[in-house]
């Protein structure tokens, strides 16, 4: 049970994530954008806090890639561009898709859910990197930051809507 064995296991886990991502197909980028917007609009309808996903959610398509973003890349406090929850929490995210045969593939994402002020942890962030780190034990390709920048816990959900499910129906309800 050495550090070296732990690193080998982390490498194996990253390889599994690579395989899952290669096999995982989403709809076309346009469909994914539309689906996320419809999802957010439905959630916004269920809340008291006003959000306008039509204005908040943006995309850019270039050379077979699509970036879908909501809010700032770095959470430095609340902004009008965040999606705001009734609990006082806020969400920003960015995801990149690559066009592929019969749809698209996820390249990377970052979903930052910031808890209301004074809460601990201050945030959870779901990240997918576009490739393996040299030390996958410290930085698995697909990981969760539990409110600490240098701590990354592996996880394996790759569908953008499924991550939003966890944020809206699990995190927000527990906040």
């Amino acid at each position, binding site marked *: 049970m050495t550090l070296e064995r732990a690193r080998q296991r982390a490498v194996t886990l990253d390889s599994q994530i690579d395989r899952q991502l290669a096999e995982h197909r989403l709809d076309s980028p346009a469909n994914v954008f*539309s689906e996320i917007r419809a999802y957010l609009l439905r959630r916004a309808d269920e809340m008291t806090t006003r959000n306008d996903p039509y204005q908040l959610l943006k995309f*850019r398509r*270039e*050379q077979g890639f699509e970036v879908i973003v909501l809010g700032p*890349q770095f959470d430095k406090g609340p902004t009008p561009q965040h999606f705001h929850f009734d609990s006082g929490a806020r969400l920003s995210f960015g995801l990149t898709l690559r066009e592929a045969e019969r749809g698209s593939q996820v390249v990377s994402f970052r979903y930052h859910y910031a808890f209301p002020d004074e809460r601990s942890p201050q945030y959870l962030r779901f990240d997918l*990197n*576009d490739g393996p780190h040299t030390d996958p034990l410290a930085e698995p390709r697909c990981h969760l930051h539990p409110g600490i920048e240098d701590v990354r816990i592996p996880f394996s959900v790759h569908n953008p809507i499924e991550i939003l499910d966890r944020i809206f129906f699990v995190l927000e309800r527990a906040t």
Partner: protein
Amino acid sequence: MPEFSTEPFFEIARRLEVRGETGWLAVLSPATDSTAALDELQTELQSVLQKLTRVIQLEASTFEKLRDTLHQPDDDAVILSGGAGLTPEKWRTLDIMRSALERKGPVILWLAPDDIANLANLAPNIRSLIGGSIFVAGPDGGIMTETERQYRLKQLSEHFGLTGEEVVRKAEARELPHDPEFVEWLVLLDRGDLV
């Protein structure tokens, strides 16, 4: 042509959703790139209504075929695409079929802007079914503006203390970290080839 409200497809789909997902409405296609626009309308209807959405070409349909297609199934969303080639005879046939066209799911009549006169003159029953629910296809929104793109690039540059040129050089040398922010950076720079 009377003034009709210009709405993005997303809003048109929302109107149908609020209405309980039934009924008819008409959408006037943009003058250019109407095929791509029709695809977008279909996508938005599926996303918002969470229903299968079929496109049926009116020009190619006989009375019996159209009736059967609309009722098998009868609860999904259907876009009836008129097309510029719809003859007066076809319009009149469509009008006579009005009661046979009634179904549980919504029907969206996709028309070229010039077809609105044919709808009023040759298919008054369908026109009354649609009532005031005629919309002009508007910009669908969501596209990142150049100002927004530049703002996001500036935020990335300030956060990491790197210029766009330096990021490209690092990516070319395979020295760029794999964090999602760098992927966004490259795509915003139109250098997705380096991802």
